[in-house]
Protein backbone atom coordinates (compact mmCIF):
# COMPACT_ATOMS: atom_id res chain seq x y z
CA UNK A 1 0.00 0.00 0.00
CA UNK A 2 1.41 3.32 -0.92
CA UNK A 3 0.36 6.17 1.25
CA UNK A 4 1.47 9.08 -0.81
CA UNK A 5 1.69 11.56 1.98
CA UNK A 6 4.12 10.84 4.81
CA UNK A 7 3.03 7.25 5.01
CA UNK A 8 4.88 4.85 7.24
CA UNK A 9 2.73 2.15 8.76
CA UNK A 10 -0.54 3.68 7.80
CA UNK A 11 -1.38 2.48 4.35
CA UNK A 12 -4.74 1.49 5.71
CA UNK A 13 -7.88 1.78 3.63
CA UNK A 14 -10.61 0.99 6.12
CA UNK A 15 -12.38 4.28 5.37
CA UNK A 16 -11.87 3.85 1.65
CA UNK A 17 -14.42 5.69 -0.39
CA UNK A 18 -14.84 8.38 2.25
CA UNK A 19 -11.78 10.34 1.18
CA UNK A 20 -13.75 12.99 -0.67
CA UNK A 21 -16.16 13.53 2.18
CA UNK A 22 -13.34 13.73 4.73
CA UNK A 23 -11.21 16.07 2.67
CA UNK A 24 -13.93 18.38 1.44
CA UNK A 25 -13.59 20.88 4.32
CA UNK A 26 -9.82 21.09 3.78
CA UNK A 27 -10.16 21.58 0.04
CA UNK A 28 -12.86 24.19 0.49
CA UNK A 29 -11.20 26.25 3.20
CA UNK A 30 -7.62 26.25 1.93
CA UNK A 31 -8.67 26.04 -1.70
CA UNK A 32 -10.90 29.08 -1.58
CA UNK A 33 -9.29 31.28 1.03
CA UNK A 34 -5.65 30.62 0.27
CA UNK A 35 -5.12 28.81 -3.03
CA UNK A 36 -7.12 31.32 -5.05
CA UNK A 37 -5.38 34.36 -3.49
CA UNK A 38 -2.00 32.66 -3.95
CA UNK A 39 -2.77 31.90 -7.58
CA UNK A 40 -3.58 35.54 -8.00
CA UNK A 41 -0.13 36.30 -6.61
CA UNK A 42 1.36 33.78 -9.03
CA UNK A 43 -0.28 35.74 -11.84
CA UNK A 44 1.01 39.01 -10.33
CA UNK A 45 4.57 37.70 -10.54
CA UNK A 46 4.25 37.71 -14.34
CA UNK A 47 2.74 41.18 -14.56
CA UNK A 48 4.30 44.59 -14.99
CA UNK A 49 4.89 46.45 -11.78
CA UNK A 50 2.99 49.60 -11.12
CA UNK A 51 5.16 52.29 -9.62
CA UNK A 52 4.77 52.36 -5.82
CA UNK A 53 2.79 49.17 -5.47
CA UNK A 54 0.15 47.37 -7.48
CA UNK A 55 0.34 45.83 -10.93
CA UNK A 56 -0.38 46.70 -14.53
CA UNK A 57 -2.04 43.86 -16.43
CA UNK A 58 0.67 43.33 -19.02
CA UNK A 59 2.62 40.08 -19.18
CA UNK A 60 6.36 40.29 -18.48
CA UNK A 61 9.16 38.19 -17.06
CA UNK A 62 10.87 41.22 -15.52
CA UNK A 63 10.41 40.05 -11.95
CA UNK A 64 12.13 36.71 -12.58
CA UNK A 65 14.77 38.41 -14.69
CA UNK A 66 15.53 40.72 -11.77
CA UNK A 67 15.81 37.75 -9.43
CA UNK A 68 18.22 35.69 -11.50
CA UNK A 69 20.09 38.15 -13.72
CA UNK A 70 22.38 40.95 -12.69
CA UNK A 71 22.40 43.95 -14.99
CA UNK A 72 24.39 46.29 -12.79
CA UNK A 73 23.36 49.22 -10.64
CA UNK A 74 21.93 51.08 -13.63
CA UNK A 75 20.35 48.11 -15.36
CA UNK A 76 22.35 48.28 -18.59
CA UNK A 77 25.42 46.15 -17.96
CA UNK A 78 25.57 42.84 -19.82
CA UNK A 79 23.54 40.27 -17.91
CA UNK A 80 25.35 37.91 -15.58
CA UNK A 81 24.09 35.68 -12.79
CA UNK A 82 22.58 37.68 -9.94
CA UNK A 83 23.93 36.36 -6.64
CA UNK A 84 22.22 38.89 -4.39
CA UNK A 85 18.89 37.14 -4.00
CA UNK A 86 20.31 33.64 -4.19
CA UNK A 87 22.61 34.72 -1.35
CA UNK A 88 19.67 36.03 0.68
CA UNK A 89 17.83 32.74 0.13
CA UNK A 90 20.90 30.73 1.02
CA UNK A 91 21.41 32.69 4.24
CA UNK A 92 17.78 32.19 5.25
CA UNK A 93 17.85 28.46 4.48
CA UNK A 94 21.04 28.08 6.47
CA UNK A 95 19.64 29.99 9.45
CA UNK A 96 16.36 28.08 9.37
CA UNK A 97 18.24 24.78 9.12
CA UNK A 98 20.38 25.58 12.14
CA UNK A 99 17.33 26.64 14.11
CA UNK A 100 15.62 23.36 13.21
CA UNK A 101 18.60 21.32 14.40
CA UNK A 102 18.75 23.32 17.61
CA UNK A 103 15.03 22.79 18.21
CA UNK A 104 15.41 19.07 17.55
CA UNK A 105 18.39 18.69 19.89
CA UNK A 106 16.53 20.37 22.72
CA UNK A 107 12.98 19.46 21.72
CA UNK A 108 13.40 15.72 21.35
CA UNK A 109 14.67 15.07 24.90
CA UNK A 110 12.00 17.41 26.23
CA UNK A 111 9.25 15.62 24.29
CA UNK A 112 10.64 12.28 25.41
CA UNK A 113 10.71 13.34 29.02
CA UNK A 114 7.13 14.60 28.82
CA UNK A 115 5.86 11.49 27.06
CA UNK A 116 7.28 9.22 29.76
CA UNK A 117 5.47 10.97 32.63
CA UNK A 118 2.16 9.56 33.83
CA UNK A 119 -0.93 10.64 31.91
CA UNK A 120 -1.93 13.49 34.18
CA UNK A 121 1.52 15.05 34.33
CA UNK A 122 1.91 14.81 30.56
CA UNK A 123 -0.86 17.33 30.03
CA UNK A 124 0.60 19.60 32.67
CA UNK A 125 4.06 19.46 31.11
CA UNK A 126 2.66 20.12 27.65
CA UNK A 127 0.88 23.17 28.95
CA UNK A 128 4.03 24.31 30.77
CA UNK A 129 5.85 24.26 27.44
CA UNK A 130 3.08 26.10 25.58
CA UNK A 131 2.01 28.64 28.20
CA UNK A 132 4.78 31.12 27.33
CA UNK A 133 3.24 31.27 23.88
CA UNK A 134 0.14 32.92 25.25
CA UNK A 135 2.31 35.99 25.36
CA UNK A 136 2.72 37.56 21.97
CA UNK A 137 5.77 36.64 19.90
CA UNK A 138 6.74 40.27 19.55
CA UNK A 139 6.75 40.73 23.32
CA UNK A 140 8.70 37.53 23.81
CA UNK A 141 11.26 38.59 21.23
CA UNK A 142 11.64 42.06 22.70
CA UNK A 143 12.06 40.57 26.20
CA UNK A 144 14.63 38.15 24.85
CA UNK A 145 16.46 41.13 23.40
CA UNK A 146 16.36 42.87 26.75
CA UNK A 147 17.69 39.75 28.45
CA UNK A 148 20.70 39.23 26.19
CA UNK A 149 21.70 42.82 25.47
CA UNK A 150 25.17 43.88 26.54
CA UNK A 151 23.91 45.72 29.59
CA UNK A 152 21.11 43.24 30.26
CA UNK A 153 20.54 40.76 33.11
CA UNK A 154 22.25 37.78 31.46
CA UNK A 155 25.56 39.55 30.98
CA UNK A 156 25.25 41.24 34.37
CA UNK A 157 24.74 37.88 36.07
CA UNK A 158 27.60 36.22 34.22
CA UNK A 159 29.95 39.10 34.97
CA UNK A 160 28.88 39.27 38.57
CA UNK A 161 29.57 35.58 39.04
CA UNK A 162 32.98 36.06 37.46
CA UNK A 163 32.41 33.68 34.55
CA UNK A 164 33.13 36.42 32.01
CA UNK A 165 34.90 39.78 32.22
CA UNK A 166 33.22 41.55 29.34
CA UNK A 167 29.70 41.32 27.88
CA UNK A 168 29.25 38.38 25.52
CA UNK A 169 28.14 40.70 22.74
CA UNK A 170 25.41 38.35 21.48
CA UNK A 171 22.99 41.05 20.44
CA UNK A 172 22.92 41.85 16.70
CA UNK A 173 24.71 38.63 15.79
CA UNK A 174 23.61 35.44 14.03
CA UNK A 175 23.72 33.70 17.38
CA UNK A 176 21.02 36.03 18.66
CA UNK A 177 18.91 35.27 15.58
CA UNK A 178 19.35 31.55 16.24
CA UNK A 179 18.32 31.97 19.82
CA UNK A 180 15.28 33.99 18.72
CA UNK A 181 14.19 31.42 16.12
CA UNK A 182 14.70 28.60 18.61
CA UNK A 183 12.62 30.48 21.13
CA UNK A 184 9.93 31.29 18.55
CA UNK A 185 9.36 27.76 17.33
CA UNK A 186 10.37 25.29 20.06
CA UNK A 187 6.85 23.94 20.83
CA UNK A 188 6.39 23.29 17.10
CA UNK A 189 9.03 20.62 17.55
CA UNK A 190 8.08 19.39 21.00
CA UNK A 191 4.38 18.77 20.38
CA UNK A 192 4.51 16.61 17.22
CA UNK A 193 7.47 14.64 18.59
CA UNK A 194 5.55 14.15 21.80
CA UNK A 195 2.49 12.94 19.90
CA UNK A 196 4.64 10.28 18.22
CA UNK A 197 6.73 9.26 21.26
CA UNK A 198 3.69 8.93 23.48
CA UNK A 199 2.60 6.07 21.23
CA UNK A 200 5.95 4.31 21.45
CA UNK A 201 5.73 0.68 22.57
CA UNK A 202 8.41 0.06 25.18
CA UNK A 203 8.38 -3.67 24.62
CA UNK A 204 10.43 -2.86 21.53
CA UNK A 205 13.12 -1.33 23.74
CA UNK A 206 12.94 -4.27 26.07
CA UNK A 207 13.38 -6.70 23.23
CA UNK A 208 16.40 -4.75 22.05
CA UNK A 209 17.79 -4.63 25.57
CA UNK A 210 17.42 -8.38 25.80
CA UNK A 211 19.73 -8.51 22.82
CA UNK A 212 22.24 -6.47 24.81
CA UNK A 213 21.76 -3.27 22.88
CA UNK A 214 22.95 -0.25 24.83
CA UNK A 215 20.59 2.57 25.72
CA UNK A 216 21.92 4.82 22.95
CA UNK A 217 21.87 2.04 20.39
CA UNK A 218 18.23 1.46 21.22
CA UNK A 219 17.57 5.17 20.76
CA UNK A 220 19.29 5.25 17.40
CA UNK A 221 18.17 1.94 15.91
CA UNK A 222 14.81 1.28 17.50
CA UNK A 223 13.22 4.44 18.84
CA UNK A 224 14.16 7.02 16.23
CA UNK A 225 12.82 5.03 13.26
CA UNK A 226 9.52 4.51 15.06
CA UNK A 227 9.01 8.14 16.07
CA UNK A 228 10.36 9.51 12.79
CA UNK A 229 6.97 10.78 11.58
CA UNK A 230 6.78 13.07 14.60
CA UNK A 231 10.32 14.31 14.09
CA UNK A 232 9.66 15.02 10.42
CA UNK A 233 6.46 16.87 11.25
CA UNK A 234 8.32 18.92 13.86
CA UNK A 235 11.12 19.73 11.43
CA UNK A 236 8.62 20.93 8.82
CA UNK A 237 6.83 23.07 11.41
CA UNK A 238 10.06 24.71 12.57
CA UNK A 239 11.97 24.96 9.31
CA UNK A 240 9.32 26.37 7.00
CA UNK A 241 8.10 29.20 9.25
CA UNK A 242 11.73 30.02 10.19
CA UNK A 243 12.48 30.57 6.51
CA UNK A 244 10.08 33.48 6.32
CA UNK A 245 10.59 34.79 9.86
CA UNK A 246 11.42 38.46 10.18
CA UNK A 247 10.88 39.41 13.82
CA UNK A 248 13.89 37.55 15.21
CA UNK A 249 16.27 38.64 12.41
CA UNK A 250 15.06 42.26 12.65
CA UNK A 251 14.96 42.71 16.40
CA UNK A 252 17.73 40.40 17.56
CA UNK A 253 19.94 40.39 14.47
CA UNK A 254 19.81 44.13 13.88
CA UNK A 255 18.20 43.88 10.40
CA UNK A 256 21.57 44.46 8.78
CA UNK A 257 20.90 42.00 6.00
CA UNK A 258 17.73 40.96 4.26
CA UNK A 259 16.30 37.54 5.02
CA UNK A 260 13.69 36.04 2.71
CA UNK A 261 10.90 37.30 4.94
CA UNK A 262 12.11 40.89 5.12
CA UNK A 263 13.06 40.96 1.43
CA UNK A 264 9.53 40.01 0.41
CA UNK A 265 7.97 42.30 2.99
CA UNK A 266 10.03 45.18 1.65
CA UNK A 267 8.54 44.65 -1.82
CA UNK A 268 4.99 45.03 -0.53
CA UNK A 269 5.37 47.33 2.46
CA UNK A 270 8.62 49.17 1.71
CA UNK A 271 9.75 51.99 -0.52
CA UNK A 272 10.42 49.63 -3.42
CA UNK A 273 6.72 48.87 -3.80
CA UNK A 274 7.51 46.15 -6.32
CA UNK A 275 4.62 43.70 -6.02
CA UNK A 276 5.52 41.48 -8.99
CA UNK A 277 9.05 41.02 -7.65
CA UNK A 278 7.73 40.27 -4.16
CA UNK A 279 5.29 37.78 -5.67
CA UNK A 280 8.03 36.19 -7.80
CA UNK A 281 10.34 35.82 -4.78
CA UNK A 282 7.52 34.19 -2.85
CA UNK A 283 6.80 31.80 -5.75
CA UNK A 284 10.47 30.79 -5.93
CA UNK A 285 10.53 30.20 -2.17
CA UNK A 286 7.35 28.15 -2.33
CA UNK A 287 8.69 26.13 -5.24
CA UNK A 288 11.81 25.23 -3.25
CA UNK A 289 9.83 24.21 -0.16
CA UNK A 290 7.31 22.31 -2.28
CA UNK A 291 10.04 20.33 -4.06
CA UNK A 292 11.59 19.33 -0.74
CA UNK A 293 8.22 18.32 0.73
CA UNK A 294 7.16 16.31 -2.30
CA UNK A 295 10.55 14.64 -2.57
CA UNK A 296 10.07 13.62 1.03
CA UNK A 297 6.55 12.33 0.35
CA UNK A 298 7.90 10.35 -2.61
CA UNK A 299 10.72 8.81 -0.59
CA UNK A 300 8.13 7.74 1.95
CA UNK A 301 6.15 6.03 -0.77
CA UNK A 302 9.19 4.16 -1.96
CA UNK A 303 10.04 3.10 1.57
CA UNK A 304 6.56 1.77 2.15
CA UNK A 305 6.62 -0.17 -1.11
CA UNK A 306 9.87 -1.97 -0.42
Amino acid at each position, binding site marked *: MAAMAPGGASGSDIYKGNAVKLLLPTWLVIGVFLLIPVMLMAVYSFLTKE*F*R*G*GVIWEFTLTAYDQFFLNRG*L*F*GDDPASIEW*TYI*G*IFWRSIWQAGLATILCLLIGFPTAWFIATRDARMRTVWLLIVTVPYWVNLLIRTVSMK*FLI*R*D*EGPLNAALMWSGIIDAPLGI*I*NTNLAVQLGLFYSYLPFMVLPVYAAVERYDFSLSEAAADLYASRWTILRLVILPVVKPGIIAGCILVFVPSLGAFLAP*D*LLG*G*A*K*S*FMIGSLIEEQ*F*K*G*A*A*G*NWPFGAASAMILMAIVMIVLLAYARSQTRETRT
Partner: protein
Amino acid sequence: MNKFLATSLVALTASAAQAQELKLYNWFEYMPQELLDAFTEETGIAVTMDTYDSNESLLASLKAGKLGAYDIAVPGDYMVKILADEGMLDTFAPEEMPNLGNIETQWLTVPFDEGRKSSVPYQWGSTSFAVNREVFDGDIQDTAIIFDPPEELAGKINVLDTSGELLTLASMHLGIPQCTSDREQLKALNALVTGAKPDWASFGSDVAKDVLTSGDAAAGMIWSGFAAKARGEGAPIEYAFPRQGVIVWMDNLALLKDAPNRDSALAFMNFMLEPENAATLTNYAQYSAGVTGVTEFLDPEVADSPEANPPEGTKTVFVEACPEDIQVMYDAIWTNLKK
Protein backbone atom coordinates in the same frame (compact mmCIF):
# COMPACT_ATOMS: atom_id res chain seq x y z
CA MET B 1 -14.66 77.83 18.36
CA ASN B 2 -18.09 79.10 17.32
CA LYS B 3 -17.28 78.49 13.71
CA PHE B 4 -16.33 74.99 14.62
CA LEU B 5 -19.54 74.37 16.50
CA ALA B 6 -21.43 75.62 13.50
CA THR B 7 -19.74 73.12 11.20
CA SER B 8 -20.25 70.25 13.55
CA LEU B 9 -23.91 71.21 13.75
CA VAL B 10 -24.07 71.14 9.98
CA ALA B 11 -22.40 67.78 10.09
CA LEU B 12 -24.83 66.63 12.71
CA THR B 13 -27.90 67.52 10.72
CA ALA B 14 -26.42 66.25 7.48
CA SER B 15 -26.17 62.73 8.73
CA ALA B 16 -28.49 62.76 11.69
CA ALA B 17 -29.96 59.49 10.49
CA GLN B 18 -26.86 57.38 11.14
CA ALA B 19 -24.81 57.09 14.26
CA GLN B 20 -21.93 59.50 14.04
CA GLU B 21 -18.58 57.89 13.61
CA LEU B 22 -15.10 58.49 12.31
CA LYS B 23 -12.58 55.98 11.04
CA LEU B 24 -9.05 57.14 11.48
CA TYR B 25 -5.99 55.41 10.06
CA ASN B 26 -2.90 56.61 11.90
CA TRP B 27 0.69 55.72 12.73
CA PHE B 28 0.98 53.71 15.89
CA GLU B 29 1.80 55.52 19.13
CA TYR B 30 0.92 58.85 17.57
CA MET B 31 -2.40 59.83 19.14
CA PRO B 32 -3.27 60.22 22.81
CA GLN B 33 -6.55 58.51 23.68
CA GLU B 34 -7.56 61.59 25.71
CA LEU B 35 -7.72 63.67 22.57
CA LEU B 36 -10.02 61.20 20.82
CA ASP B 37 -12.22 61.12 23.91
CA ALA B 38 -12.33 64.92 23.98
CA PHE B 39 -13.40 64.94 20.32
CA THR B 40 -16.17 62.42 21.01
CA GLU B 41 -17.35 64.41 23.98
CA GLU B 42 -17.43 67.62 22.00
CA THR B 43 -19.11 66.30 18.85
CA GLY B 44 -20.75 63.00 19.75
CA ILE B 45 -18.75 61.33 17.00
CA ALA B 46 -17.30 57.97 18.01
CA VAL B 47 -13.76 57.41 16.76
CA THR B 48 -12.20 54.11 15.78
CA MET B 49 -8.51 54.21 15.03
CA ASP B 50 -6.36 51.66 13.26
CA THR B 51 -2.62 51.92 12.98
CA TYR B 52 0.17 51.31 10.49
CA ASP B 53 3.94 51.47 10.80
CA SER B 54 5.20 53.30 7.73
CA ASN B 55 4.06 55.56 4.91
CA GLU B 56 4.64 52.71 2.51
CA SER B 57 2.55 50.20 4.41
CA LEU B 58 -0.27 52.78 4.48
CA LEU B 59 -0.03 52.97 0.69
CA ALA B 60 0.13 49.18 0.34
CA SER B 61 -2.98 48.51 2.39
CA LEU B 62 -4.93 51.29 0.67
CA LYS B 63 -3.93 49.83 -2.68
CA ALA B 64 -4.84 46.29 -1.66
CA GLY B 65 -8.38 47.30 -0.81
CA LYS B 66 -8.66 49.43 2.30
CA LEU B 67 -9.55 52.59 0.44
CA GLY B 68 -13.15 53.29 1.37
CA ALA B 69 -12.79 51.83 4.85
CA TYR B 70 -11.25 54.93 6.43
CA ASP B 71 -12.03 58.63 6.47
CA ILE B 72 -8.65 60.06 7.37
CA ALA B 73 -5.07 58.85 7.13
CA VAL B 74 -1.90 60.54 8.36
CA PRO B 75 0.61 60.43 5.49
CA GLY B 76 3.95 62.21 5.56
CA ASP B 77 4.63 65.07 3.14
CA TYR B 78 5.86 63.11 0.12
CA MET B 79 3.20 60.46 0.70
CA VAL B 80 0.46 63.11 0.55
CA LYS B 81 1.71 63.92 -2.94
CA ILE B 82 1.85 60.23 -3.90
CA LEU B 83 -1.64 59.53 -2.56
CA ALA B 84 -2.97 62.57 -4.42
CA ASP B 85 -1.27 61.46 -7.64
CA GLU B 86 -2.77 57.99 -7.16
CA GLY B 87 -6.22 59.58 -6.86
CA MET B 88 -6.66 58.36 -3.31
CA LEU B 89 -7.43 61.73 -1.73
CA ASP B 90 -10.63 63.74 -1.66
CA THR B 91 -10.60 67.53 -1.61
CA PHE B 92 -12.43 70.03 0.53
CA ALA B 93 -13.44 73.63 -0.09
CA PRO B 94 -11.90 76.30 2.18
CA GLU B 95 -15.33 77.12 3.64
CA GLU B 96 -15.62 73.51 4.83
CA MET B 97 -12.55 74.03 6.99
CA PRO B 98 -13.22 77.12 9.14
CA ASN B 99 -9.95 76.72 11.04
CA LEU B 100 -7.81 76.68 7.91
CA GLY B 101 -6.59 80.13 8.92
CA ASN B 102 -4.98 78.67 12.05
CA ILE B 103 -2.30 76.97 9.99
CA GLU B 104 1.09 78.66 10.19
CA THR B 105 1.85 80.45 6.93
CA GLN B 106 4.88 78.34 6.12
CA TRP B 107 2.72 75.20 6.29
CA LEU B 108 -0.21 76.66 4.35
CA THR B 109 1.53 76.84 1.01
CA VAL B 110 3.32 73.57 0.71
CA PRO B 111 4.52 71.84 -2.45
CA PHE B 112 2.97 68.49 -1.55
CA ASP B 113 -0.56 69.88 -1.27
CA GLU B 114 -0.74 73.24 -3.03
CA GLY B 115 -3.22 75.49 -1.26
CA ARG B 116 -4.14 72.78 1.26
CA LYS B 117 -7.00 71.17 -0.66
CA SER B 118 -6.81 67.67 0.82
CA SER B 119 -4.78 67.82 3.99
CA VAL B 120 -4.04 69.84 7.10
CA PRO B 121 -0.97 69.73 9.35
CA TYR B 122 -0.74 67.07 12.04
CA GLN B 123 2.82 67.30 13.36
CA TRP B 124 6.14 68.26 11.87
CA GLY B 125 9.63 67.51 13.00
CA SER B 126 13.10 66.75 11.82
CA THR B 127 15.28 63.72 11.29
CA SER B 128 18.99 63.67 12.04
CA PHE B 129 20.82 61.74 14.72
CA ALA B 130 21.55 61.73 18.44
CA VAL B 131 24.76 60.86 20.23
CA ASN B 132 25.38 59.48 23.70
CA ARG B 133 27.50 62.23 25.28
CA GLU B 134 28.99 59.90 27.85
CA VAL B 135 30.54 57.87 25.06
CA PHE B 136 31.61 60.68 22.76
CA ASP B 137 32.02 64.31 23.74
CA GLY B 138 33.55 65.76 20.57
CA ASP B 139 31.86 67.77 17.82
CA ILE B 140 28.64 66.07 16.68
CA GLN B 141 27.29 68.72 14.33
CA ASP B 142 28.39 66.79 11.25
CA THR B 143 26.85 63.86 9.35
CA ALA B 144 30.27 62.21 9.48
CA ILE B 145 29.13 60.95 12.90
CA ILE B 146 27.01 58.45 10.99
CA PHE B 147 28.89 57.97 7.73
CA ASP B 148 32.50 58.27 8.86
CA PRO B 149 32.23 57.86 12.61
CA PRO B 150 34.91 58.59 15.20
CA GLU B 151 36.52 55.59 16.82
CA GLU B 152 34.40 55.82 20.00
CA LEU B 153 31.18 55.41 18.04
CA ALA B 154 32.17 52.99 15.28
CA GLY B 155 30.24 49.74 15.57
CA LYS B 156 27.76 51.29 18.00
CA ILE B 157 25.49 53.09 15.57
CA ASN B 158 21.86 52.43 14.72
CA VAL B 159 20.48 53.80 11.44
CA LEU B 160 16.85 54.14 10.40
CA ASP B 161 15.62 51.15 8.44
CA THR B 162 13.98 53.25 5.72
CA SER B 163 15.73 53.87 2.44
CA GLY B 164 14.21 57.34 1.99
CA GLU B 165 15.63 58.90 5.14
CA LEU B 166 18.94 57.03 5.22
CA LEU B 167 19.82 57.68 1.58
CA THR B 168 18.71 61.30 1.84
CA LEU B 169 20.95 61.93 4.84
CA ALA B 170 23.76 60.16 2.98
CA SER B 171 23.18 62.43 -0.04
CA MET B 172 23.37 65.45 2.23
CA HIS B 173 26.66 64.15 3.62
CA LEU B 174 28.03 63.94 0.09
CA GLY B 175 26.48 67.23 -0.93
CA ILE B 176 24.68 65.68 -3.90
CA PRO B 177 21.04 66.37 -4.83
CA GLN B 178 18.25 63.88 -4.12
CA CYS B 179 16.81 61.92 -7.02
CA THR B 180 19.93 62.47 -9.04
CA SER B 181 20.42 60.63 -12.30
CA ASP B 182 24.14 61.40 -12.38
CA ARG B 183 25.91 58.03 -12.41
CA GLU B 184 29.06 59.19 -10.66
CA GLN B 185 26.98 60.64 -7.84
CA LEU B 186 24.93 57.46 -7.50
CA LYS B 187 28.08 55.36 -7.46
CA ALA B 188 29.54 57.60 -4.77
CA LEU B 189 26.34 57.25 -2.74
CA ASN B 190 26.44 53.48 -3.10
CA ALA B 191 30.10 53.40 -2.07
CA LEU B 192 29.46 55.66 0.92
CA VAL B 193 26.71 53.58 2.48
CA THR B 194 28.26 50.18 1.76
CA GLY B 195 31.57 51.52 3.13
CA ALA B 196 29.91 52.82 6.30
CA LYS B 197 27.81 49.71 6.96
CA PRO B 198 30.53 47.87 8.96
CA ASP B 199 30.39 50.78 11.43
CA TRP B 200 26.66 50.29 11.98
CA ALA B 201 25.45 47.87 14.63
CA SER B 202 21.85 47.73 13.50
CA PHE B 203 19.11 49.02 11.21
CA GLY B 204 15.92 49.90 13.04
CA SER B 205 13.23 52.58 12.95
CA ASP B 206 10.76 51.64 15.68
CA VAL B 207 13.62 50.77 17.98
CA ALA B 208 15.51 54.02 17.32
CA LYS B 209 14.67 55.38 20.77
CA ASP B 210 14.98 52.10 22.62
CA VAL B 211 18.52 51.39 21.45
CA LEU B 212 19.67 54.79 22.70
CA THR B 213 18.00 54.59 26.12
CA SER B 214 19.20 51.03 26.68
CA GLY B 215 22.74 51.77 25.60
CA ASP B 216 22.70 49.18 22.80
CA ALA B 217 23.73 52.01 20.48
CA ALA B 218 25.89 55.00 21.31
CA ALA B 219 24.64 57.04 18.37
CA GLY B 220 21.70 56.69 16.09
CA MET B 221 19.63 58.30 13.39
CA ILE B 222 16.39 59.38 15.01
CA TRP B 223 13.39 61.67 14.71
CA SER B 224 13.42 64.81 16.84
CA GLY B 225 10.43 63.93 19.04
CA PHE B 226 11.77 60.46 19.61
CA ALA B 227 15.10 61.92 20.70
CA ALA B 228 13.30 64.25 23.09
CA LYS B 229 11.46 61.28 24.62
CA ALA B 230 14.70 59.32 24.95
CA ARG B 231 16.30 62.27 26.72
CA GLY B 232 13.21 62.52 28.94
CA GLU B 233 13.70 58.89 29.91
CA GLY B 234 17.17 59.70 31.12
CA ALA B 235 19.36 58.81 28.15
CA PRO B 236 22.43 61.09 28.16
CA ILE B 237 22.00 61.98 24.50
CA GLU B 238 22.21 65.13 22.43
CA TYR B 239 20.25 65.59 19.20
CA ALA B 240 22.41 67.02 16.42
CA PHE B 241 21.68 69.70 13.85
CA PRO B 242 24.57 68.93 11.49
CA ARG B 243 25.97 71.65 9.24
CA GLN B 244 24.98 69.60 6.19
CA GLY B 245 21.38 70.10 7.33
CA VAL B 246 18.53 68.05 8.76
CA ILE B 247 15.64 66.31 7.07
CA VAL B 248 12.36 68.05 7.76
CA TRP B 249 9.03 66.30 7.39
CA MET B 250 5.40 66.96 8.10
CA ASP B 251 2.69 64.41 8.78
CA ASN B 252 -0.75 65.52 7.70
CA LEU B 253 -4.37 64.64 8.28
CA ALA B 254 -5.46 63.75 4.76
CA LEU B 255 -9.05 63.34 3.64
CA LEU B 256 -9.31 59.96 1.91
CA LYS B 257 -11.32 59.34 -1.20
CA ASP B 258 -14.57 57.43 -0.67
CA ALA B 259 -14.51 58.36 3.00
CA PRO B 260 -17.55 56.73 4.58
CA ASN B 261 -17.96 59.64 7.00
CA ARG B 262 -16.72 62.70 5.15
CA ASP B 263 -18.46 65.17 7.47
CA SER B 264 -16.98 63.57 10.57
CA ALA B 265 -13.60 63.68 8.89
CA LEU B 266 -13.85 67.41 8.23
CA ALA B 267 -15.04 67.98 11.78
CA PHE B 268 -12.02 66.11 13.09
CA MET B 269 -9.54 67.95 10.88
CA ASN B 270 -11.04 71.20 12.07
CA PHE B 271 -10.86 70.03 15.66
CA MET B 272 -7.18 69.24 15.31
CA LEU B 273 -6.51 72.75 14.02
CA GLU B 274 -7.73 74.24 17.30
CA PRO B 275 -4.56 75.43 19.06
CA GLU B 276 -5.47 73.74 22.32
CA ASN B 277 -5.98 70.35 20.68
CA ALA B 278 -2.92 70.68 18.48
CA ALA B 279 -0.97 71.46 21.65
CA THR B 280 -2.30 68.35 23.43
CA LEU B 281 -1.03 66.30 20.52
CA THR B 282 2.32 68.06 20.53
CA ASN B 283 2.73 67.51 24.26
CA TYR B 284 2.21 63.81 23.60
CA ALA B 285 4.24 63.33 20.42
CA GLN B 286 6.84 66.01 21.23
CA TYR B 287 7.17 67.30 17.66
CA SER B 288 5.70 70.63 16.50
CA ALA B 289 2.15 71.50 15.53
CA GLY B 290 2.24 73.79 12.49
CA VAL B 291 -0.70 75.67 14.01
CA THR B 292 -0.58 79.21 15.37
CA GLY B 293 -1.30 79.97 18.99
CA VAL B 294 -0.28 76.61 20.44
CA THR B 295 2.59 77.91 22.56
CA GLU B 296 0.50 78.94 25.54
CA PHE B 297 -0.91 75.41 25.84
CA LEU B 298 2.42 73.62 25.59
CA ASP B 299 4.27 72.03 28.48
CA PRO B 300 7.32 74.23 29.04
CA GLU B 301 9.76 71.36 28.58
CA VAL B 302 8.16 70.54 25.21
CA ALA B 303 8.04 74.16 24.11
CA ASP B 304 11.69 74.71 24.98
CA SER B 305 13.06 71.31 24.02
CA PRO B 306 16.33 71.61 22.13
CA GLU B 307 15.13 68.98 19.65
CA ALA B 308 12.17 71.07 18.50
CA ASN B 309 14.08 74.35 18.35
CA PRO B 310 16.80 74.15 15.71
CA PRO B 311 19.53 76.80 16.00
CA GLU B 312 19.20 79.78 13.69
CA GLY B 313 20.39 79.00 10.18
CA THR B 314 19.93 75.22 10.26
CA LYS B 315 19.60 73.91 6.71
CA THR B 316 16.44 71.90 6.14
CA VAL B 317 15.59 69.42 3.40
CA PHE B 318 12.39 67.53 2.54
CA VAL B 319 12.65 63.95 1.33
CA GLU B 320 11.70 64.05 -2.34
CA ALA B 321 9.57 61.47 -4.11
CA CYS B 322 11.71 60.48 -7.10
CA PRO B 323 10.28 59.64 -10.52
CA GLU B 324 10.10 55.93 -11.35
CA ASP B 325 13.20 55.54 -13.54
CA ILE B 326 15.36 57.13 -10.85
CA GLN B 327 13.71 55.47 -7.86
CA VAL B 328 14.70 52.11 -9.36
CA MET B 329 18.37 53.02 -8.92
CA TYR B 330 17.89 54.08 -5.31
CA ASP B 331 16.08 50.79 -4.69
CA ALA B 332 19.05 48.96 -6.19
CA ILE B 333 21.44 50.81 -3.87
CA TRP B 334 19.26 49.93 -0.89
CA THR B 335 19.08 46.25 -1.82
CA ASN B 336 22.80 46.22 -2.43
CA LEU B 337 23.33 47.71 1.02
CA LYS B 338 21.22 45.08 2.75
CA LYS B 339 22.07 42.01 0.70
